[in-house]
């Protein structure tokens, strides 16, 4: 199976990219930056993309989605990002929450949530990061205890994106296994208007319409069916959502890198200070050529991760998703850095639309999984080196 995956995208995937790119050009960077700087959301873009079915490409057809795979969703994500108008919550809502519910939800849960993911009318945030656990998600302490008619959830989360614009948050908590008595990760859908659920915005230095929050969960009462999947399935069902997240994060990063490279390249062709375009100097040309190589390698690995995931090769997909995430973040950081350098002083002027990418590209190295954690995965699982933590 795995070795039959082709090296080019299908005609349909390419057509999807074209369609999304044309659609996104209607909004573009100017719209995105204007909204972000005014403290507004990109709701029109989200709703419009939802109506086009772009946000629901990977939701099963029977729930009104496109019936495609994570690779299709990633293509949408990358093209929006390449057009300068990324939708951060795509990484969370349809990719993590949608995939987990489609894979592990009960029929009733699927009926309730998936149609809204299919047309974008439903947005769900995802909360795993905790202040004291950080990258060490084994250490999370948000805990659910059983009650007569459901659950009580207690804990707290940090850096959770989009809590202010969603109806529900998929919260990763822990439950005492009925069989073994051990605490295992379990997933709960928590309405943002539930009693005991509150959140405060974190002031961030990055430009973006989506905000991050500290979330407090104090004795939040949940019905029995707030639990998604089995309380004993543990980490597997979590990774059903986290590998798509990595693939999406990689796509968003390569989209950003493509955009920065395009700006840098056209600037290097036009700008003349010694009588020739600056792109004629190899010190300018080579870094851009390197970026082109790095971006394409990252895209290829991202597509491979998606293809493996769609083929049900979850172990291989996990390795590829980590490699793709790593490579894409590196490509985004170095390309944005090079693009700024090529622009000289203009690189830091708002008008050229690059300086806001500096923070955004740095983010790709940190979230949703840091560069170091991705490398830990490769060191341990691909190279068999001793576990470092």
């Amino acid at each position, binding site marked *: 199976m795995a070795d039959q995956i082709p090296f080019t995208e299908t005609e*349909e995937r390419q*057509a*999807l990219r074209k*369609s*999304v790119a*044309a*659609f996104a050009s209607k909004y573009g960077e100017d719209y995105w930056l204007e909204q972000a700087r005014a403290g507004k959301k990109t709701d029109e873009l989200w709703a419009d993309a939802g109506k*086009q*079915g*772009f946000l*629901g*490409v990977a939701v099963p057809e029977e729930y009104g989605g*496109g*019936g*495609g795979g994570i690779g*299709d969703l990633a293509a949408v994500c990358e093209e929006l990002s390449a057009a300068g108008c990324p939708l951060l919550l795509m990484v969370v809502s349809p990719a993590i929450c949608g995939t987990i519910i489609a894979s592990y939800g009960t029929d009733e849960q699927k009926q309730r949530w998936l149609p809204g993911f299919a047309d974008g009318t439903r947005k769900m945030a995802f909360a795993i990061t905790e202040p004291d656990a950080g990258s060490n998600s084994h250490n999370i302490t948000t805990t659910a205890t059983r009650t007569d008619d459901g659950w009580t959830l207690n804990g707290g989360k940090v850096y959770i994106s989009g809590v202010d614009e969603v109806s529900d948050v998929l919260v990763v908590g822990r439950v005492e296994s009925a069989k073994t008595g051990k605490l295992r990760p379990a997933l709960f859908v928590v309405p943002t208007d539930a009693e005991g659920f509150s959140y405060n915005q974190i002031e961030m230095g990055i430009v973006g319409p989506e905000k991050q929050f500290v979330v407090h969960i104090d004795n939040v009462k949940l019905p029995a069916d707030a639990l998604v999947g089995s309380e004993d399935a543990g980490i597997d069902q979590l990774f059903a959502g986290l590998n798509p997240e990595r693939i999406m994060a990689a796509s968003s990063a390569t989209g950003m890198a493509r955009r920065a490279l395009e700006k840098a390249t056209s600037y290097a062709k036009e700008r003349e200070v010694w009588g020739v375009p600056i792109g004629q100097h190899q010190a300018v040309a080579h870094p851009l050529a390197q970026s082109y190589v790095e971006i394409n390698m990252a895209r290829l690995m991202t597509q491979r991760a998606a293809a493996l995931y769609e083929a049900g090769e979850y172990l291989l997909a996990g390795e590829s998703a980590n490699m793709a995430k790593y490579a894409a973040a590196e490509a985004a950081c170095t390309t944005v850095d090079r693009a700024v350098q090529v622009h000289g002083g203009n690189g830091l002027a708002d008008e050229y639309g690059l300086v806001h990418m500096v923070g955004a590209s740095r983010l790709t190295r940190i979230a949703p999984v840091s560069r170091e954690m991705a490398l830990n995965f490769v060191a341990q699982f691909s190279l068999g080196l001793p576990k470092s933590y």
Partner: protein
Amino acid sequence: MNIVVCVKYVPDAQADRTFSQDNTTDRTNVDGLLSELDEYAVEEALKLAEAGEGEVTVVTVGPDGAAEAIKKALQMGADKGVHVLDDAIHGSDAPATSLVLAEAVKKAAGGSPELVLMGLASTDGTMSVVPAMLAERLGLPQITQLSSLEIADGKVTGRRDSDAASDTLEAPLPAVVSVTDQINEPRYPSFKGIMAAKKKPVETWSLADLGVDAGQVGLESAWTKVESFTARPPREQGEIVTDEGDGGTKLAEFLAKAKLI
């Protein structure tokens, strides 16, 4: 209602356009696409079909690559496609194109179509004559350049805007109608549309299938002949006026010299 939309495959205006050795546009070595102005005709057809019962057939006359134009229309939602493909068509002029289109439209509609929709003009040739010629050949009424369109009681009614006034035009169906870029906002192919297009029927017809004599079309029988061409000369550097307090006067002098004021 069964609607036939005529769509043209044109060289991408963003790409460098070149000519072949016989002085015709090079349509093989350049990326092509569905003429953007024809997307409005497709969109209007889809809206009409969605509002009632109906089927939308797209017809194109063009080289191999023109299948791309059909595919795009099918991805947008059209039901089936017809591609008239024949080496003998190479170099055809507008009268010949309309001759081939007329036979293709008749065959696609199984006799007379109820409504033929077309674009304002192709984005490469931009003559804006094919709709009129096609109507003439089909013996149907034509209303061209509509910015709004309505079908009721066996009639098509619409508005044609000009700088000074707007006309309301009406014709009995069947009719040939061309539409402008003001009439709607063409949809982007959705993912479902893209996937569904794979399974939609596309027929490829030759001149023989249409009963058109190859001698009536093509470069040899075109009414005009391109003898030669030259590239547009590069733009000359404009005059730069430095404002030394007399900028306004200098600007006025410049405009007066050009007889603009």
